[in-house]
């Protein structure tokens, strides 16, 4: 069943966000978040590893969401021809 309206963006956005967040959390928690804390400081978001994980998720989610919107446009375009 094709996704409609906002869901075209938000479903893949949330899916990838969740996937990336969980993936990062697993990798980082196994190492006491040593690097996450430093990179969070490097990117000037306060040295908070959880915030960096969230930002990572949003970055991945955005790419996924925007791609999905593009995909949807292609399929709409193709079907309407």
């Amino acid at each position, binding site marked *: 069943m094709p996704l409609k309206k906002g869901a075209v963006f938000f479903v893949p956005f949330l899916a990838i966000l969740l996937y990336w967040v969980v993936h990062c959390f697993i*990798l980082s928690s196994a190492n006491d978040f040593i*690097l*996450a804390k430093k990179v969070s*400081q490097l990117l000037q978001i306060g040295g908070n590893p959880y915030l960096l994980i969230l930002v990572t998720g949003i970055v991945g989610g955005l790419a996924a969401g925007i791609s999905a919107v*593009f995909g949807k446009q*292609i399929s*709409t375009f193709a079907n309407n021809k």
Partner: protein
Amino acid sequence: MKYVKLFISFVFTIGIFYALNTKLGPLPPLGKFLNPGSGIWQNEKDESITGNATIPGLKEQVTVHYDEQMIPHVFAQNEHDLYKAQGYLTAKHRLWQLEFQTYAAAGRLSEIIGEGALNYDRAERRRGMGYGADQAIAYMEQYDTETLGFLQDYADGVNAYIDQLAPEDYPVEYKLLDYSPEAWSSKKTALLLMYMTKMLAGGDDDLEYTNVLRLIGKENFNLLFPDFFDSVDPVIPKDTDWSFIDVTQTELPASQVVLDTIVETIEKPNPDNGSNNWAVSGAKSVTGNPILANDPHLGLNLPSIWFVMQLSTPEHNAFGATIPGALGVISGFNQYIAWGETNATRDVIDWYKIEFNNDRTQYKYDGQWKNVRVRVEDIKIKGKESYKDSVLYTHHGPVVYDKNFRSDNERSGYAMRWIGHDGGNNQKTFIALNKAKNYDDYVNALQYWNAPAQNFVFASTEGDIALWIQGKFPNKWEGQGKFLMDGSNPENDWQSYIPQKFNAHTKNPERGFVSSANQHPVDENYPYYVFNDGYETYRNRVINTFFSTKEKFSVQDFKDLHNNNYNLKAEELVPYMLEHMDTSSLSEDEKAIYQEISTWNFNNDIDEVGPSIWRQWYGRLYNMLWDEFDVEDMALVSPYTYQTIHLLKNYGDHEFMDIVATEDKTEVAKDLFLLAFKEAAKRLKEIKEQDGDYTWVNYKSTYAGHLLQALPAFSRFDIPIGGGRNIVNATSENHGPSWRMIVEMTSPPTALGIYPGGQSGNPGSQYYDNFIDDWAAGKYHSLNFLQSDEATSAIIGTQTLIPNHD
């Protein structure tokens, strides 16, 4: 409409993927950088220390045991395999640093960082760093293909690691700057050795001295910059008999100084680059075994310059500090001997004024015209077109300054004569020292060493101690190379070299110990010209005094001496200033500070305020005294601390004491004491209001900065350690004992070592900076010197390097 929607979503998609995968300005490419599968999250771990790894070209298996400090103990069956393994393991733990240092050495930082590094790169090219590395390789190709073969082994090892490395496993810094590692080569090892030569023998003030001489005249120059201070305590003891030397000093020609005005010179290495080393004989040791110590003072960086390893074959077994990029152990020990280095600080750079013909294809020499050689330096710049710089070479060396670089004279330039360009075979010295069994082997190993000249300390299980000042030294005429020389006059060329066997040295001296701390190598009785190129004058006296305080010394005494915070410099001036300064005009606040420094015991301990007051006071005093040297558009250098203090105490009413800006007054030394004190007190009060106090630990705030412009996230700040410049514990803000080693010559030797960093180069590893706290506290780690490839209880993981049989 649907076309528009399609188009917009297409642009967004392209846009977001471009933005997330491209480095925009100072930010890394965020998508790539944060992607959990390929970005920094993959670096959130320690390096593996178990399992197998394949290195093509290995002859036999190599066993690598790791102890809990993550020091690799390498057991290879032959030397070729050993250096392959060293290359592989160094790359595994320190790849980014390994490569970055050689980019810096070669003047290639613009390739990584961009245009901001262009001036740095140009200076390195013009200094002839690449040229010198080429010369070293050419020397080995002609005279020592064995060593060159080992360099290739090391390169094979590094490349085996790089070849197996997937992009997601690149060190964090590559991801941050968005580039990938390139293949390693023997030339890169030669570049690394040039980098060391520059760091330790790349400084000189000849051009600045030329300006100073023109400015203040010969008599004042000699007062301010004497070749020998009123008292020296040289590396080689004063009573040494030099009568065995039968080659005389080059005769003084009727040469004239060229009194040019030089506006600006290239950046010098940190003048604090130096070190301590010492050894006591068995007779002076509590246990009867000689004991040796070394602590090289360098910039405090992360990843640390040192990487500790045990490197063994069935024929030899060496342990100690290695430098990523160089083969073998640099400062360490094996089953029979221990060795360490301090910088000999000799003047091995001279400058010649070159006169060109009209189209700069020839230069004047000995009444004729000689052809110029051109070396085109192609400097690649990230995101821009590359920059081509043509550097002209004379028989002296590269013309560093000319109309294209920091000078505007169309038809002249300044050429550099540097021993670093002479193609030495330094690598051979380390490889031979790693295998040396006794004093003769040690002396034999040293003969290959040209530059940077080092004080090589030695102790053996046989009971010998020794110290050789080794380098290739021009046999200069009196005063040669102190100032800019006329490059067209052959008499100004280096005429010959001091024969290596006449280099100053001492073996088993009567006093029962040898030591060096970058001070004068010898006193006036040594029959060659030794110019004062910035010799240290405080650490050496504290060390030598320490060894005359009692009969016998222990390892604990050595630790105490490494961590000795006594400020001899302050002790030689503060009481004099307190006595002679007119205190009648001091305010209440100033009196309180006066009181604080009056009760200081001259130790630069972390909780003292005395060191901070002294630093402020002396710093301002020094600037006030040498205000004559604060001239725009002219490269100048002001006198050394020792002579400054000597003049303040003995020439208190000399014309230099006067502050030039106060026209109606003529200040003398004691006026400066007061003026500087009041300024210092004002600043100290500000610091107190801002930071709460000015205890030494807060005032100094020692830090270890990441190699990449001290990126705060990857650096360590506010390290609680005392000491300071010219103190045996030479830890200043960002500089200090970069490796502390103590070796007792039991059979086999028993050793302690520590450095301010950690074995891993990965900021995401717990081993990145885990030694720092113990180092700051003056603690040491026992070095587990394994005698066979059997894992002991100290071993936490074993990796086997295996040949690929295909």
